């Protein structure tokens, strides 16, 4: 059991380092979801099933859902969408300039 926990903790630290190194926001959020799932298993190895089920539902589910929605809102997911937004903005500014 000790070996399993140590490997899981190493994986946790690896996930954390990967999140801090990655430049792409979507990638880092996905890796953070991974981090939460590993955390879930660590709660089981620490004999706290209450924490495991709460982390699985709240930490992994709801937090990453909110992260994805935030990325959607700040146009960090779809590059096409971002380009479209930019084009619209320039068109609007240009239109006002002509008036």
């Amino acid at each position: 059991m000790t070996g399993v926990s140590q490997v899981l903790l190493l994986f946790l630290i690896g996930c954390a380092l990967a999140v801090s190194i990655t430049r792409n926001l979507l990638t880092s959020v996905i890796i953070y979801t991974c981090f939460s799932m590993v955390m879930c298993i660590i709660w089981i190895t620490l004999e706290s099933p209450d924490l495991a089920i709460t982390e699985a539902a709240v930490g992994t589910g709801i937090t990453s859902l909110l992260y994805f929605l935030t990325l959607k809102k700040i146009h960090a997911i779809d590059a096409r969408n971002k380009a479209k937004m930019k084009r619209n903005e320039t068109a609007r500014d240009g239109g006002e300039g002509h008036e």
Partner: protein
Amino acid sequence: MFSKWLMNYEETAAVILFCIGFSMMLFNRNLIKKIIGMDMMDSSIYLFLASQGYIEGHKAPIVTGGVQSTEAYINPIPSGLVLTGIVVAVSVSALMMALSIRLYHRYHTLDLDKIVALTGREEA
């Protein structure tokens, strides 16, 4: 010293995770990265608390077979505290994400340095 770290391996991992989250908050200028770093610091503190309550060979604190002695179950108090903490952490990160969305709509950037530069000395 090294053997002590190996013995307290859960606490050591929690400390390292705390420092990774802390450095993420310091070194990254992106607000989303800062929020993830803060969530990570939260998780590391929960890991530390729960590892303090763990006792080798004891079972999860759910009464089975009518056994009610401290020799059978781990310490339930850290579990209760962390349970509260996880839910509050979600509320805090939802709040911070809503604030960053508002900042993005206002300033069209999530770079904190640029936002500070845009808010400061408006007349200059």
